[in-house]
């Protein structure tokens, strides 16, 4: 198979199609800047999708739980051993993704006799100053997309992860229109839920709406989904008391968002 170029390309294409179909149902993940760091947000039913990797690095992932677990463990081990042998300041998301994860994912993807990783990862690293946060998406084939280089004057203040391209693009377009990267946590949560709802609507390729759903429809989607699933949200806090900045949001912090949904319903 490998010795014939065409068959190699065909095999890779088949493999890509297979993995994409496996990832296509993944519930979207939204990450965006807010006044005191970065918010990570998703809605899920059965398993945890947001994880702490190191003091300033978090991970959101969709895909097969076994593969996510291997990659998550790898990332934690790389960061922890580097942070221990040198210092926490030497742990860098960019190095981890570029030099360790990406080559390994690409190799696993292209070795057509072995199993690929069925996973798509979104890493977030809290920067030294507001607007310096890094969002970095690593795909199953090792491709990396990030929100700009370290010297970029205009870094994006958000990133999304979703099962399909239309869903990803719709969410990115919506978040790009959002002006304020210094919003309060509650405002960021509201934006995140709206973006998630849009991403979720666009997932099903058979039923992609012709026009983008309006806010009212998005609210309906959110309500229907939240009736059977729950919000998972965490923050990387710029002003955390300890070195570890990752914190899972508590119920009282999520309550205003849920009350807002039902209140809007009563007014209507």
């Amino acid at each position, binding site marked *: 198979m490998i010795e014939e170029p065409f068959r190699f390309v065909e095999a890779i294409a088949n493999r890509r199609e297979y993995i994409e179909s496996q990832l296509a149902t993944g519930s979207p993940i939204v990450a965006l800047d807010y006044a005191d760091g970065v918010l990570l947000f998703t809605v899920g039913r059965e398993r945890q999708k947001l994880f702490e990797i190191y003091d300033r690095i978090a991970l959101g992932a969709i895909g097969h739980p076994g593969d996510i677990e291997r990659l998550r*463990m*790898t990332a934690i081990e790389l960061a922890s051993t580097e942070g221990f042998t040198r210092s926490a300041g030497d742990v860098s998301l960019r190095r981890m993704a570029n030099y360790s994860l990406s080559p390994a994912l690409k190799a696993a993807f292209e070795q057509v006799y072995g199993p690929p990783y069925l996973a798509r990862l979104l890493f977030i690293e809290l920067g030294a100053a507001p607007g310096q946060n890094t969002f970095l998406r690593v795909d199953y084939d090792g491709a990396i997309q990030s929100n700009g280089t370290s010297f970029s004057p205009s870094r994006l203040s958000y990133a999304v992860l979703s099962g399909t391209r239309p869903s990803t693009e719709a969410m990115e377009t919506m978040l790009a229109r959002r002006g304020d990267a210094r919003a309060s946590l509650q405002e960021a949560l509201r934006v995140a839920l709206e973006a998630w709802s849009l991403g979720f609507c666009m997932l099903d390729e058979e039923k992609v709406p012709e026009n983008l759903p309006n806010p009212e429809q998005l609210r309906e989607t959110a309500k229907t989904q939240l009736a059977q699933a729950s919000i998972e949200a965490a923050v990387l806090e710029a002003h955390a008391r300890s070195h570890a900045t990752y914190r899972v949001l508590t119920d009282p912090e999520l309550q205003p968002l849920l009350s807002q949904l039902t209140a809007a319903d009563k007014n209507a």
Partner: protein
Amino acid sequence: MIPPTSRLGASLAPGASAGAPPISAAIALPSTGSADAQGGDFLALLQARGLYHSAGQHFAPSSVNVSAPAAPAPFVPTQATTILAFKFAEGVLIAGDRRATAGNTIVYERADKVLEIDRHSVMAIAGVPATAWEMARVLEHSFQYYRRTQLQEMSVGGKVRALSKLLRDNFGLVMQGVGAVVPIFATYDAAADHGVTQENGARAHDPNSGRLYFYDVMGANFEVADFAATGSGSPAVRGVLYYEDTWGAKPLLAYARDEALTLALKALDTAADADSATGGVDRHGRIFPIIKIITRAGIETIADETLARLFREHRRATGGSLSGGSASNR
């Protein structure tokens, strides 16, 4: 092109515990699989990578016998410092002076012997700083690594045991006359805090949710209900704390924050009066002890200004010089 190995410190080959040799360095991700067997054990990970050697590994009993001198070196405790900790109404207070000594020489007047390990845990050390700080670093990473990989906080019992193990591993060096460490470990068991109902009916946190342990050099841990002290100045401190707890106006557990801070300052100052290895409260150099308070909300380091104010207020109240004893040369 630079091969993608060892760019992040860690090797890309699987850890020793993973067993099978890597097919190709480029595709083998580290660990993957070994981590399950390790169950979030950071020390095992370091050992698998060759990044950590406990002192005990180098001292098999036979080799000690062969190389042991005819008369074993006398064991000299070198915990020249004062560390104290006690439970009070809000949680646990833990304090240490800031002097580091080598024999009769003062090497450093701003040493930090009260080290934060995680959001609710503090380790305070008397003994050899090199060993103690390394232990603190290992502990900090162990707890974080466990939480991150296992997706749950390590239990208080597990944390206490982790420090025991480090002390035990270090014992080979201690027997050779170096590296003795006698720590106090304080933490707040948020999981066990179910709250209590106060006299006025309001709900409050359970003051007993603070946890306090002291250790010996071999790693035995002792949980204490009220207070603990270690280091060369500890006899004086133990006297002060016992007296206040038993014969004072109220037990330490009923102390409010400022009262607890004042008592810690008084106790350290008392210890420093007779113990040359304890820095105490140096009013001239404006060097104050490190005092940390562990409550349900986390760890708080008390600002020097607060300590200075309490110290000043107290001195006025007693109307005398706190530098006290007639033999004092400060």
